[in-house]
């Protein structure tokens, strides 16, 4: 099923949790809603599920208005951040719940329920835990029970709220891989919320980046990484060096850097900033090519295959650089030495 979200706005008093948000989830897609906490992602997910009503805008499921429909009739599976398992029921009964509460005419036979639940429990690799209670399970196991329970009602859309947020790093990695395999297997249209950019980029086919109730960018993981649409996206997707300055007559003068900037050919000067990631900077002993700046190394840290340098420019502004091990070996510079730093890539954004 496809989901179309049109101009959603949701206010809590004077606070705008969502502000004119529109995007589309295509059939079979695994889409990530990525953004900082409190940015409106969870509200958006809850509106899609029907747990909350928007003040304005519409949600269409395969072109049909879903807002008027009660959550129970929307055909969504929802995995809550803290799983929300029924703590007085066994794992088996948790998964069976959605089938048992159906109106009598649509309720499967007891034997059929057993078969379906056992099938789902083996899908999430928990068939041996059916008679346990949620409090007797580990976090990762609870997560998978929550997923099995959501899938039991054969939803047309799966919605996951920070699915791995409460788990430790190793289990998170494992579940992430597992969820991707599962999605490849059953191809269910899925939307998950996360504040972890790595998780979003690794798992999703498409990423919608949300901040302060607005969409900053909507694109494939590659698009958002390679062509970030806004300074926020650049900042959010990882560590970045910022060079403040201005643009005028096709040139950008950003502190120690001078670049071509044909996007702004006008004589009127505008403030702007250039963004360059630590691995997008080259370091050398000479300034053969120009276009860079001289800086002094203040810190060198070897982190496995890469070397992290901190340098300061002439005005004592710190700049972070990441080099490959071999590259670093070839220049052999240590703390206190002057080196020439040249960005291989700078993204320039004019201030609004």
């Amino acid at each position: 099923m496809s989901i179309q979200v049109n101009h959603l706005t949701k206010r809590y008093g004077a606070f705008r949790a969502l502000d004119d948000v529109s995007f589309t989830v295509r059939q079979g897609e695994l889409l990530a809603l990525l953004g900082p906490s409190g940015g409106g992602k969870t509200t958006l997910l809850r509106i899609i599920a029907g747990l909350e009503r928007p003040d304005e805008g519409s949600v269409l499921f395969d072109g049909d208005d879903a807002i008027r429909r009660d959550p129970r009739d929307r055909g969504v599976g929802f995995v809550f951040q803290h799983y929300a398992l029924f703590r007085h029921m066994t794992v088996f009964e948790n998964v069976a719940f959605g089938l048992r509460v159906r109106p009598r005419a649509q309720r499967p036979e007891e034997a059929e329920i057993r078969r379906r639940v056992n099938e789902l429990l083996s899908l999430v690799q928990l068939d041996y835990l059916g008679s346990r209670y949620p409090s007797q399970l580990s976090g990762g196991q609870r997560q998978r029970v929550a997923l099995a329970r959501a899938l039991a009602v054969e939803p047309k859309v799966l919605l996951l709220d920070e699915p791995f947020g409460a788990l430790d790093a190793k289990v998170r990695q494992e579940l992430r891989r597992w969820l991707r395999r599962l999605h490849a297997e059953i191809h269910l249209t899925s939307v998950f919320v996360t504040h972890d950019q790595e998780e979003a980029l690794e798992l999703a086919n498409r990423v919608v980046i949300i901040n302060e109730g607005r969409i900053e960018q909507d694109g494939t993981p590659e698009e958002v990484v390679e062509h970030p649409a806004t300074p926020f996206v650049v900042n959010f997707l990882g560590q970045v060096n910022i060079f403040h300055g201005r643009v005028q007559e096709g040139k950008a003068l950003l502190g120690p850097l001078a670049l071509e900037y044909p996007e702004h050919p006008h004589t009127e000067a505008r403030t702007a900033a250039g963004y360059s990631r630590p691995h997008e900077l080259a370091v050398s002993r000479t300034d053969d090519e120009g276009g860079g700046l001289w800086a002094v190394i203040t810190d060198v840290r070897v982190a496995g295959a890469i070397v992290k340098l901190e340098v300061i420019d002439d005005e004592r502004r710190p700049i972070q650089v990441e080099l490959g091990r071999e590259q670093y070996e070839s220049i052999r510079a240590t703390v206190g030495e002057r080196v020439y730093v040249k960005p291989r890539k700078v993204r320039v954004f004019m201030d609004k």
Partner: protein
Amino acid sequence: MAGYVHASTGQRGRRSGRLTEPLIVRVLLIAIALGFLFLFLVLPLATVFTEAFASGTAAYLDAIREPDALAALRLTLLAAAIAVPANLVFGVCAGWAIARFQFRGKQLLTTLIDLPFAVSPVISGMVFVLLFGRQGVLGPWVADHDIKIVFAVPGIVLATIFVSFPFVAREIIPVMEAAGSQEEEAARVLGAGGLQTFFRVTLPNIKWGLLYGVILCNARAMGEFGAVSVVSGKIRGVTNTLPLHVEILYNEYAFQAAFAVSSLLAFLAIVTLIVKTVVERRMGAAVEAVPEAAAAPQLS
């Protein structure tokens, strides 16, 4: 609420295990506590039973079997049988509203629920006299329709409902708040209707708190003296409840009979305490499961 607090502090004490106070302080404190308990609780209770049986078992049974005593017992049971279910329904509604919804006047409602605790029972009774009595606001209307409230059974039931209504609501509000609404939301998304959600998800989560509230509510409903005394008119065999009957017997110097009827109430109190202890223990176990479920990562 009270039970939850007791249960958890008890657990913590047991876990930490080591006490820093010297032996003498411990012995002294325990002695004072037990001495008080004996003087003010055990001794009076024992007196009730010894006095009740002072003239022999036959006299005891006679005092209880006496028609006025039986009528008082029936009325007490009737008042409780109406007040407890009424307050159960009210308590669940109020608890649900306060724990689940945001609305104007929520704070006021929460405070008002405690009103019967704050107000003297005599005033609680007076309210109904002032409302439905001959000179009362609704008095003429009631008289026109030939309904008797004050100095009749309906007045006693109303007063009983009034004094016992906070118990259920107060017990389930914290339990519902601790349980949160996520399980109910999960049930809704999974296709459960309102009633299904309540009976399959909400009720199992709050059942021990609810039962605890009902027990306390019942104890208060059966034991209430002040408010009922004002509206009753103390017509023997008609508007006398057990506590009122005890007072009348006592005022007539029928001490043995008074204590015999008292022993019924004392017995009721003991049963209440036993049931309460059992429920508290179950509720403690249920509440402990909550934080464990919320704090997720504890993997090997």
